[in-house]
């Protein structure tokens, strides 16, 4: 009476297959080290998954790039050689595309190189930022995203350090500190009606509205972000505004206003809005993407 392979054996076989598929051996990785990496990824993204679900999840990873990144993080020369050959120039190009300027692009790329190599040590070991690559997306895409995050953090830090000369040029040196309260109180019913209408929107619709009205993104950028054509974004924006107005008016009516009062409320309060929005947009925020660094 024959029986199939035991689960442990099956798992070992599957891991070996995944390891061979990743080509980690040529970067100096061992099967055991690769298994640890895969387990780490599974714990982060699918902690409750069964062994079978984990296997399916691992199959969808960018195994080859994951092996390369982790081999680099482990300090294997062959891996670094391969990494530099494939991504050195690309990294500079990406940084140039983000910063639109050569010197800052080189600074940005060099600082990321330092992080990737691991200038800091933890428990006597170099801590490489490549250890945070999990293989969900491509390694190149990950590098791009990390560079963009680094750029945003730097921009925000720089934004906080405005010189007095620059303030004088902008005419805000002696301006009064912005009040936490709007200069004129909005009708609470109007805000509530609009919040209610916004709350009914899907995440994608809200993303479109925020990108367009808050971030002043172009239709092309928004379309690229959502994954549709820009003309679709244009139509969707128009449709969203009409729907929002209708729902806000309905919300105001349901809150005790008649139709004329609701129309008047929509038109009257906006004169105070620009100041508030500007204040909201220009308020300083802490660095958003520091948690990846050294959090391992």
């Amino acid at each position, binding site marked *: 009476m024959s029986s199939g392979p035991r689960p442990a054996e099956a798992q070992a076989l599957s891991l070996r297959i995944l390891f061979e598929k990743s080509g980690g051996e040529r970067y100096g990785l061992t099967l055991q080290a690769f298994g640890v990496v895969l387990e780490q990824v599974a714990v982060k993204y699918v902690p409750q998954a069964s062994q079978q679900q984990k296997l399916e999840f691992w199959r969808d990873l960018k195994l080859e790039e994951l092996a390369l990144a982790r081999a680099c993080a482990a300090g294997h020369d062959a891996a670094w050689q391969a990494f530099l050959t494939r991504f050195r120039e690309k990294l500079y190009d990406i940084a140039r595309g983000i910063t639109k300027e050569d010197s800052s692009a080189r600074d940005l790329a060099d600082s990321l190189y330092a992080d990737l190599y691991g200038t800091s040590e933890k428990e006597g070991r170099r801590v490489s930022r490549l250890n945070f690559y999990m293989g969900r*997306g*491509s390694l190149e*895409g*990950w590098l791009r995203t990390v560079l963009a995050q680094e750029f945003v953090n730097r921009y925000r830090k720089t934004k906080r350090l405005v010189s007095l000369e620059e303030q004088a040029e902008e005419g805000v040196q002696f301006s009064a500190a912005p009040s936490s309260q709007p200069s004129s109180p909005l009708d609470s019913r109007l805000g509530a009606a*609009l*919040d209610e209408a916004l709350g009914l929107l899907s995440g994608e619709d809200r993303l479109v509205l925020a990108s367009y*009205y808050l*971030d002043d993104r172009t239709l092309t950028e928004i379309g690229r972000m959502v994954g549709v054509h820009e003309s679709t974004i244009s139509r969707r924006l128009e449709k969203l505004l009409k729907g*929002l107005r209708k729902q806000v008016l309905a919300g105001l009516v349901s809150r005790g206003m008649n139709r004329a009062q609701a129309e008047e409320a929509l038109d009257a309060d906006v004169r105070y809005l620009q100041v508030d929005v500007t204040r909201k947009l220009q308020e300083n925020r802490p660095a958003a*993407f520091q948690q990846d660094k050294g959090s391992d």
Partner: protein
Amino acid sequence: MPELPKLLRQRLAATETGETQAHPDADILTAYMEQSLAPAESKTVIAHLAVCEPCREVVALSQAVMAPAETQTVLAPAPVARWRKLFTPVFGAAAAVAAMAVIGFMVLQLPQNHPQQGSTGATTNNAANSPAPQPAPEAQQAKAASAVDQVAPAEPKAAAPIQQADTRVTAARADLATARQTEARLDDSAKAKAAKKPAQIASTMGAVPSSPAKAPVLTAALAKKDYVNTNFFSANGADKIAVDGQGNNLPVAPQPQPGAASAPFSITNNTANNKITIFADLPANAAGNSNVRLLTPPPPPEHPGCTMCKIVQSTAHTLGFHAPVRTPALRAGALGNSALGGPGMFSGAIEKSQPSELAAAPAKAETDSLASSGSLSAGAMAYRSADSATPTWKIASGKLMKSSGQAQWEDAYPVASSAMEFSVVNARGNDVWAGGSHASLIHSRDGGQTWETIKLGDNASGTIVSIIAGTMSVQVKTSDNQSWASTDGGKSWTLRE
């Protein structure tokens, strides 16, 4: 709704919660941008992006750099159905050109159909079969002109339309000296002329000798109807049925009526086979006459829906109807000195339609049978070919030579060959005039079988250099610059300045 976006900005900014939420890591954002996330994860990322401005900025920056790479990942174009490959810009352009060509053909065909209908049936039939009780002024004018062609001198009341037509047409052609004379005379004694002219025409017609029976003749003593030339149809195809423009079968043209009283409306031509095949073969006296109607065989049966057949047929009709008619031009001064242009003798028909074609006038105006019928329109006639044995004439070495069509020339006037040196010959069918030295002139009415010597006048001198002969009117010029004219077929001659 201009203010809602501002309100929207405020509320969206107020609800931004990105600072308090954990951001998706770079792996998740990358996977989102590369659309490799599961739907549930993607929805979560979108929900975060909707309220987190820094993450939106990261995604926007990263995608701006990523855009060229996206286009490079497409290694092969998406499969396209084979039939869709037809709808290329080149295909569209070719289809547009083809459509324009078809429309062009249709547009070109349309204007051709109307003249064909008008020339083959509608106008003639309307004029012949259903005369309007109150014709329009233009129709009246045309009718009056047609009445001149028909010439019904037996009825005195027919003089009125003749006079009317003469007066009107003469006024229009002020450049003709003879016309002016006619007009002056008509003004002086309109009533006398009106009464006299039919008698004059009748007398001149009566003086015309009868044409030989062999000559192909369409008599005018017929009702105003459409006729078909059976010779033409038998010679040009198997189609025996002639159909007019309205689809009615046309009667066969009646046989010629020999005799002086009915015959002199003879039509001859110089073509070898005497078959009217194209307009250029029409007799000179028919050319340019708007009333002449050529009946062509009916077109071959069309293939239903066959566009090419229609195009070919249309092209053939176009060529046939628009072929230029080669008509002999009148020599300069010929009309002014013509005996036909004499006072009171200028035919209205000549004035009306063909001042430049002198030979056309007598055959149309002088017909005995016309006098009795008064209703024949030349437009209702179909010309019949002349006698196939009509000889041709020439002057060679002072001799009058005749050929019957086989390129064999014989002396046509051997009697006087030793005494007379011919210089000019004028033949109209069997009516032959020849002149030569010493103002000698001979005339034959039977194609050269018998000759009569014509004496111009006592003081005639020089060699005859020019003969212009109608049926009754003859004009002769000599080398001594004399111009002799006869209006009675050569019986009497007058010397003209």
